[in-house]
């Protein structure tokens, strides 16, 4: 009797343990397999094209847009920002290294010193402050122009987020993962509801993109963001997070706050191995 009990108990423990402690690597394998099985015809890198990888009718329209991409001028603006010296004579290269094509793939990453997830945008503003310059806004404008340039220079390189075996880093990863799967807002929906379980389906007129490949093309140019009062069209990943939170009637979190940085850590890790194709064009 006692034996059966202990057996049962330990079986239960093992079951819960494997659920709670599935490693990032296992998560990634299951995540990718899920989408590969759901969309057998789609090549891995094509997931980086969001809804256009899943919806043939929208793809044509998008391909014609990509022939004269509206984001090109912002890539040029970003290059200018990268090359223009600060008032102290230094430039972004003093923070990021001379080669602009080697920057994007380093982000996001875990910083063991500050014990937090560091993003490209975070380091851009850190660099500005350290050099006595005014930091950029977090969601659009110059920060997105520079991001577009650095992304463009990194095109073709593979996403490669490293989750170090450090309990704090794993905790940040788990927090980001939980954020992604938890329902929130008055409409009670999780990121995963739309971008995993119903990816490829249409919600009203929008084809829901797969979360696999979600991060590769940011910052993104969105026609919707190029309207009066919204900016020049370009926006960062955290801007998009805010938009997707508020459409389920949840209060968006602060761009570059801990919640979204941890989400970015998990979310980008899930696209490891996919090529960077930033900046992207979307409706």
């Amino acid at each position: 009797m006692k034996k059966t009990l202990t057996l049962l108990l330990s079986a239960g423990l093992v079951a819960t343990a494997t659920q709670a402690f599935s490693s990032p690597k296992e998560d990634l394998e299951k995540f990718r397999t899920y989408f590969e099985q759901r969309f057998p015809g789609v090549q891995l890198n094509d997931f980086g094209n969001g809804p256009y990888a899943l919806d043939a009718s929208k793809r044509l329209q998008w391909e014609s847009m990509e022939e004269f991409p509206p984001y090109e001028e912002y890539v040029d603006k970003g290059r200018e920002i990268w090359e223009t010296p600060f008032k102290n004579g230094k430039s972004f290269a003093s923070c990021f290294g001379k080669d602009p094509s080697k920057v994007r793939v380093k982000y996001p990453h875990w910083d063991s010193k500050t014990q937090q997830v560091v993003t490209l945008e975070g380091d851009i503003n850190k660099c500005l402050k350290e050099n006595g310059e005014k930091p950029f806004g977090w969601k659009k404008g110059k920060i997105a122009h520079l991001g577009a340039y650095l992304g463009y220079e990194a095109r073709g390189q593979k996403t490669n987020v490293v989750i170090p075996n450090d309990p704090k880093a794993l905790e940040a990863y788990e927090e980001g993962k939980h954020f992604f799967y938890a329902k929130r807002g008055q409409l009670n929906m999780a990121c995963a509801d739309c971008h995993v379980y119903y990816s490829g389906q249409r919600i009203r007129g929008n084809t829901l993109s797969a979360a696999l490949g979600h991060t590769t093309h940011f910052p993104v140019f969105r026609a919707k963001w190029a309207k009066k009062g919204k900016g020049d069209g370009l926006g960062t990943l955290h801007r998009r997070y805010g938009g997707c939170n508020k459409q389920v009637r949840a209060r968006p979190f602060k761009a570059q706050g801990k919640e979204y940085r941890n989400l970015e850590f998990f979310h980008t890790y899930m696209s490891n191995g996919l090529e960077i194709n930033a900046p992207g064009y979307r409706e």
Partner: protein
Amino acid sequence: MTKLTQRLGGTTTVLALCAGLVFSAQVSADNIAEGKKIAFDRKKGNCLACHHIEGGTLAGTIAPPLVAMKQRFPDKAKLRAQIWDATVANPNTIMPPMGRHKILTEKEIDLVTDFIYSL
């Protein structure tokens, strides 16, 4: 004689039934129209985001089309309950709990139920 009363009785019942039908149809015609408006309104029910419903445009493909609802839900109360809180039947559902989260008022849910039940 008995036959006559029987016949008369029969006719009155039929008449009464007809009157009743016409009456209830009239009452709910307004309700149905109002319910439809709420169901289609993006800021209210927004059912079309996920469900195909006859008469609606740009419907989503997430959820089963809402047709033949009287067959699916012979009990209207069950239909209302599904709309009020879809997580009871399926805790993981993507369908918003219209009543439990007060996305719609009780009155609005009644009207939407009238409309969906008519499909």
